[in-house]
């Protein structure tokens, strides 16, 4: 114990192990204190869990875009949060138009489907254009180059959409069919949150089917495994990469609409930045490059953010617990990475992929 490969005592290993024990202890003590105090009722815990799962499913859908691109190109597409924003912001105008004509509340399902398609197509177009214009010319460059380009593309998209749609905050109209709550005894779960979670699950399973059961999915997996061999097998690498960006973009656009239904307020050009960072965290948490990992990571992060401050920090008597919810989320990330550096479902990467 606490010895390195050559059998000597290692302060680094010792410190890491002490840190692991302390973090686990803090989580257990905080949770125990909160739960034993009975301050928060079961109905309130269920409220938090439902909100966390809904938020997490949005993170998961965005995280899939990060993980798909990483899986195939080994690059972090930091402009992906803005791809999400592009769809969400654009679909707001469609939602407004549908609401004005009354169609949104007369045909809610059809309207939401239209919004999904519209936002998905906008985001897909943006993602594909970014790949074609900003990333493809840099393919083969050192990995830092596309990373910096991605950050630049992110700023470009933010300010392009600010120029297009203005800087004011906007809010999605409320869909009457999604108002109200499902009542089970004392527990009340908003219908919007159930809808958000279910639609995200459908999209995630759709992606799983696409990747596992279709020819293009097989091609994506082949390119992800080894681009050169895939090329020798006759796969059009450029097309597969473009398709991957497009699929990731579509999911991000759909996530934008889901976000608009779940949290209608706060639609503006900057709305993709924080969810983008969180979704990237979720992808790393689940194991970057791993599709089920991104889904799980997103849901896990959403739930931890929702219940963490009240469960752990409040139990430890830390003041302003709710302002520290990001600390909880990122501490969990550190904790998971300490125990499983490859993420929850990630595989250990070979030297060439790491």
């Amino acid at each position: 114990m606490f010895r390195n490969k050559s059998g000597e005592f290692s302060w680094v290993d010792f410190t890491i192990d002490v840190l692991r024990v302390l973090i686990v202890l803090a989580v257990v003590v905080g949770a125990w204190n909160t739960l034993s105090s009975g301050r928060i009722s079961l109905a309130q815990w269920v409220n938090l869990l439902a909100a966390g799962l809904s938020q997490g499913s949005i993170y998961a859908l965005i995280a899939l875009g990060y993980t798909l691109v990483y899986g195939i190109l080994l690059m972090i597409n930091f402009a992906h949060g803005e791809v999400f924003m592009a769809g969400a912001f654009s679909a707001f105008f469609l939602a407004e138009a549908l609401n004005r004509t009354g169609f949104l509340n007369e045909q809610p399902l059809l309207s939401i489907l239209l919004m999904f398609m519209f936002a998905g197509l906008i985001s897909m177009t943006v993602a594909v254009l970014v790949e074609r214009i900003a990333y493809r010319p840099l393919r083969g460059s050192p990995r830092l180059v596309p990373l910096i380009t991605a950050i630049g593309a992110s700023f470009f998209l933010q300010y392009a959409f600010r120029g297009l749609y203005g800087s004011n905050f906007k809010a999605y109209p409320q869909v009457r069919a999604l108002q109200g709550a499902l009542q089970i005894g004392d527990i009340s779960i908003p219908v919007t949150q159930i809808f958000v979670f279910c639609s995200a699950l459908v999209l995630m399973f759709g992606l799983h089917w696409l990747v596992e059961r279709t020819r293009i999915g097989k091609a994506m997996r082949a390119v992800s495994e080894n681009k050169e061999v895939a090329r020798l097998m006759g796969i059009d690498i450029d097309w597969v990469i473009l398709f991957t960006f497009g699929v990731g973009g579509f999911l991000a656009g759909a996530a934008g609409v889901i976000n608009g239904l779940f949290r209608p307020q706060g639609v503006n050009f900057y709305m993709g930045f924080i969810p983008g960072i969180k979704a990237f965290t979720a992808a790393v948490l689940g194991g970057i490059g791993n599709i089920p990992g991104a889904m799980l990571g997103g849901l896990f992060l959403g739930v931890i953010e929702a219940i963490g401050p009240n469960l752990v920090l409040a139990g430890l008597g830390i003041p302003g617990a709710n302002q520290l919810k990001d600390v909880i989320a990122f501490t969990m990330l550190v904790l998971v990475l300490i125990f499983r550096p490859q993420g929850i479902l990630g595989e250990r990467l070979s030297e060439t992929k790491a």
Partner: protein
Amino acid sequence: MTKVSPIILILALMVGTAAPAGADSACEDPLGCVEVPHGDPVAVGAMLVVSGAVNYLGEDTLGGVELALLDREYTLLNHEIELVLEDSLCTAEGGQTAAQRLAADPTIVGAIGTNCSSAAQGAIPIISESGLLMIAPSNTSPSLTNSDIGAGGSHLPGYFRTSQNGLIEGMRTAEFAKHVLKAKTLATIHDGDPYTSGLSQAVAETFADLDGGVVFQGAVNKGDTDMSSILTEIAVHQPDVIYVPLFEPEANFFAAQMQYIAGLEDTTIIGGAASFSSGFPENTGEAAIGIYVSGPLVSGDAYDRLLAQWLDEYGSDPPSGYHAHAYDATNLLLNAVEAVALVNEDGSLLIGRQAMRDAVAATEGYPGLTGRLTCREDSPFAGDCSPGTALAMFQITEAEVYDDNWPPPVVWNFATDSFEDARPARA
């Protein structure tokens, strides 16, 4: 013929150029003077929110400034008035940048702004150091007029405001919650901004002084979209009233998500002036109905004339409630220029910077649209010129949410209604 050295010639030219136009116009002001040559405009600065989520405040106050200038036909002491507008955003960095740009311009006689207290915190040190003065039309943070740096104050010479001090708004809000809503317990929220934290603190302190129970004082982060966690924490304490002086969109998220939290069904929200905009009910939706919002209330014939002029000029109603404060601020500034400017024979002006500050500070009983303005020098009200009476509590109804009505109906006018024998406000 005697030869003149070119160096002496250049020196003589330089001295000649720098010399004042007349013997009576030498600048003796300790902070220096603004020189306005004949034919040049008098430059008035404005540090307002042009872009971002609260740009309605900038639009509202800019209208007030422009109408005050229009009243004088954009002319002062036979000089044209030029408005130099800088975007101060709603952040300390924005205020700092706007102030630096104005301070670097030697023709600026003074500035109207900022809108946000956070922007004022960035702007005040620069404006004060440069010898300029600023008159804010919508800052309310108590810290801005408090000279005690050790107690969190940030007032420096050159800062004035025509908006009411948050201490007064906080006090009135707490009294309203206690006496009108008959609340026994209160929770407050802020987002770390000096405006929201100052107001929350003022409300909590007054409510506690009135023997009310302050059961929770918490904060959210700017940019937070998920309020379920803090709402659940508040629900544990089940307060009668939550005071939420947040800006958009955090205020929207907070109000909209509260309906889903078990334990807060009977809790009432009171918002601050940051939510006093037509965008708040529009973007919050149905959940905004019934929310109380404190905000400026100005009335009188002169104000009605201003509103009519606004409608003529801009074709719609003002987007917020601080245009009258901006109108008064502009007049205080222009009156000060008129009072201190030395007019030379050629019509050029010499305006002492310290004299400008002294002239504004000496304002006493000025009949403004927002009441009789008297600028105070005593901390924690140093630079406060507002009488603090133009304040009311409004309640959002369906008309504001669905029919674009603005402003909402007044449920309590702090200038005229008495808390004695107060009955609960209309639901």
